[in-house]
């Protein structure tokens, strides 16, 4: 207990002393997860919107697949990205294994189904009477699609925030494709795993506190967005 308390105190000291190693890890984590969520949103929002708005054969199957992929095990994603980017893999010539780009790719794959499935759910749950109202106002098909997406904007924003939460908290995949190289691919989650295994709890705890704080910020943002989206009638 005493060791835990002293580790916690030293963790706060590290945070307050603006330790360059610590802040380097935090900055890289934000960069990797930020880029991943931008990519996941750029792909996932149109995909989710398309699934909700366009009728085509196999649509139900695509939605089920997406929902299944929401629970993708990160280590499996890590393994697949590893195999693709490894020297003998189909994209091995790019030399991206053990780079931040590989980590962005892995996190994008993990966040994409969440963004797409939640965007789909948000747009699909727009009140049918609102859709009727849009049509009754003389909207063309494309105008109606645009207005329905605007109506679901808070649900879509919530989907993107949830995608960020998934990407930022992930450890297995980035460890496998990033390699946890100090000063290059070491992010908060992989650093915590490493420092804990080493028995060096100060840095791990300091990073844990930052991760928790980010998680709190993400959740507060999510709540605020959902509250705005579900304004009572």
């Amino acid at each position, binding site marked *: 207990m005493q060791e835990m308390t002293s580790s916690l105190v030293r963790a706060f000291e590290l945070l307050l002393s603006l330790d360059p190693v610590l802040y380097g890890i935090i900055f890289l984590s934000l960069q990797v997860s930020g880029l991943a969520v931008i990519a996941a949103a750029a792909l996932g929002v149109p995909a989710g919107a398309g699934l909700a708005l366009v009728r085509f054969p196999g649509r139900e199957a695509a939605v089920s697949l997406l929902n299944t992929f929401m629970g993708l095990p990160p280590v499996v994603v890590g393994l697949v990205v590893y195999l693709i980017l490894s020297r003998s893999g189909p994209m091995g010539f790019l030399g991206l294994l053990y780079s931040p780009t590989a980590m962005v790719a892995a996190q994008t794959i993990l966040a994409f189904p969440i963004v797409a499935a939640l965007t789909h759910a948000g747009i699909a749950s727009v*009140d049918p*009477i*609102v859709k*009727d*109202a*849009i*049509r*009754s*106002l*003389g*909207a*063309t098909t494309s*105008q109606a699609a645009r*207005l329905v997406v*605007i*109506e679901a904007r*808070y649900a879509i924003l919530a989907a993107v925030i949830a995608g960020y939460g998934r990407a930022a908290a992930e450890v297995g995949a980035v460890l496998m494709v990033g390699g946890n190289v100090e000063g290059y691919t070491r992010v908060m989650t992989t650093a915590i795993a490493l420092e804990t295994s080493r028995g060096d709890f100060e840095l791990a705890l300091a990073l844990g506190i930052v991760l928790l704080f980010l998680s709190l910020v993400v959740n507060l943002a999510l709540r605020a967005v959902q509250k705005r*989206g579900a*304004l*009572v*009638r």
Partner: protein
Amino acid sequence: MTLSLSAAGLTKIYDGRAVLDGLDFAFQRGKVHAVIGPNGSGKSTLLRLLSLLDPPTRGTVLFLDGEEPAPADISVRRRMAFVFQRPSLFNTTVLKNVEAGLAIRGRPKRERNDVALDALRRVEMEKMADRNGRTLSGGESQRVALARALAVEPEILFLDEPTANLDPHSVRIIGKAIEKLRDGGRTTILLVTHNMFLAQRLADRVVFLFEGRIVEEGEAAAVIERPRDERTWRFLTGELAG
């Protein structure tokens, strides 16, 4: 010349049951038609078919632009408007809600603003222009929905029980706005209502619908006070169940 509307053999079948059964009727241009009838008689379905929200199983909705037939497409839809029974406002300000139909028609922003504010004044909601539409009471929502419909100056206006479950103040304001529109004589109005006082006060004609068919139609006072058909009489006296 304003648009006129008629139904030819209009039929809608849901789950093997004919909700509307071969309905033929020509609505009179510029008149208010109250569509009355027990629950499940096909009133709302009729409005949805005539407003092109749903396709009929059989039959057609015919539009005449003067004497010329007009195709039942988006151009005709943009000459009509619909107020639903349930609140149907968008999650944005009252003003933007009322501007929506004008924005869809590509009207310039400044003009949209003026027209929308004028429509809001007609339902005494101009002071709430900046409020979010979802934070309004049922009566206020319905008044804004009516303003949204009025803003596009429809030639045909569909009102599906617009005053059901509303406070008397909102019913009065909505009634007044419809009355003014009726007196303008340029809008054909189809009003589905269970409120016979409102029907008698606002409507020129009353159409009594029963089991998907028109049983009786005529001048409002005549149908409500001296119905010819026994079923109409039983409905008006509360003896006919839906």
